[in-house]
């Protein structure tokens, strides 16, 4: 499946014409997004360039410890980013961090153990990055929904606690809905993949000149691995985060307490 493609900085610069088009539409329709478009463009250039050099170094060093260090930093920033989407969940950082770490470790461990990918930086870095990125989105959506569910259903939760239900029992319907919210987007996009859109890996491989059959197989592997990693991350994050709404005496904490 090894392929290569040469992309010059001139070609990258030419693609900025599409960014200018987006900014022009924003200016024309007064959506006030021009500044955000510029920031997003600059940030993506700087961040991807930096990570490109980092990955190059890691590939050349060819040591597993640098891979672990890079993925750990990605998990950390993923948890910090997702926390900002889960403001109604008290202490959301640790459930997110643990969820992302377990999702990344278990899915990468499994694809290596099953012989799907070699345990080398060339596979672990890009695949790990995809797993963590998608797991971050799924767990952020799940915890955002959990926060909304609990804050909007305090009366129902307390009514169930008042019967002597545990915090886990009283919050189970809301945790279930949050988990569903976190994972449904990827499930839906997996259902429609190939029909409505082509996923990024497959597009990248085709552009790089790979055989379509190779591109499809690799894409399928990644889609299936992503389903696993998002489910694990959302499950662990919601399974840990709901506890933070309750005291050890199985009482629903006051908002902001």
């Amino acid at each position, binding site marked *: 499946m090894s392929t290569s493609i040469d992309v010059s900085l001139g070609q990258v610069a030419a693609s900025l014409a599409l960014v200018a088009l987006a900014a022009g539409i924003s200016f024309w329709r007064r959506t006030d997004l021009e500044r955000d478009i510029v920031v997003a463009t600059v940030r993506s250039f700087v961040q991807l360039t930096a990570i490109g050099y980092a990955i190059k170094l890691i590939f050349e060093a060819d040591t597993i410890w640098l891979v672990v260090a890079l993925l750990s930093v990605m998990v950390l920033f993923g948890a910090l980013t997702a926390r900002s989407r889960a403001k109604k969940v008290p202490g959301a950082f640790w459930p997110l961090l643990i969820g992302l770490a377990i999702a990344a470790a278990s899915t990468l461990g499994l694809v290596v153990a099953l012989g799907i990918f070699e345990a080398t930086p060339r596979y672990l870095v890009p695949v790990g990055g995809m797993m963590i990125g998608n797991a971050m989105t799924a767990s952020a959506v799940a915890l955002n929904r959990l926060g909304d569910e609990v804050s909007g259903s305090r*009366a129902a939760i307390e009514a169930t606690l008042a019967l002597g239900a*545990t915090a886990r029992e009283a919050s189970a319907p809301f945790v279930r809905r949050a988990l569903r919210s976190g994972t449904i987007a990827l499930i839906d996009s997996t259902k429609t993949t190939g029909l409505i859109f082509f996923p990024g890996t497959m597009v990248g491989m085709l552009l790089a000149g790979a055989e379509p059959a190779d591109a499809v197989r690799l894409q399928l592997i990644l889609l299936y691995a992503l389903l696993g990693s998002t489910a694990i991350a959302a499950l662990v994050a919601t399974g840990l985060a709901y506890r933070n709404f309750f005291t050890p005496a199985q009482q629903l904490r006051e908002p902001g307490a």
Partner: protein
Amino acid sequence: MLFELRDVSLTRGGRPVLDSIGVEIHSGATAIVGPSGSGKSTLLRLLNRLADPDTGTISYRDRPLSEWDPLQLRREVSLVPQLPALLEGTVESNLRYAAGLAGKELDARRCLGHAGLDSRFAERDVSKLSVGEQQRAMLARALAQEPAVLLLDEPTSALDHDARDAIEATLARLRTEIDISLIVVSHDPEQARRLADRAVRLKAGRVAACGPLAEALT
């Protein structure tokens, strides 16, 4: 004595909700009355540990609440909140859930009957019930746990006069049919007179009076 509160205080958002409450609540029917914001509902929530006071002690059957397993306490001292909040599903599934938590065999017909509902309500979807019917279903659900004490938070506040009278009649009949103590929060002293033998009158988070109705509500 059921409950004994000693020097109980609670502050929320920097505002004292309960201030040095000291009161004894005996078996039978007790009303907690007072104007809105006087701390009635908060006091009720303390009795089955949905919340804890900042200071002071509360005892149930001569044992501090902190020594009770909160789950066991809540199955024995069941609280019916002001607004109905049933679980999705049928009335019977709600009753079965509550009975299961308390480790009791469910007799749905008996529970529904005590709450003034026909046994045919068992199969009704809770989302199709009127507010009054939901309130009765909440009562039946609490009774499915066979509690020793029933805490009722403004049980008729969301109901019209006819439904209110029916719930009051149900509660009065309940006391004659089963061995249960009632602690009823109400903003209406007349309702307290109809439902209770004793009363605790709160004013701005403090006990203004307590004892037999004649003393507490004058």
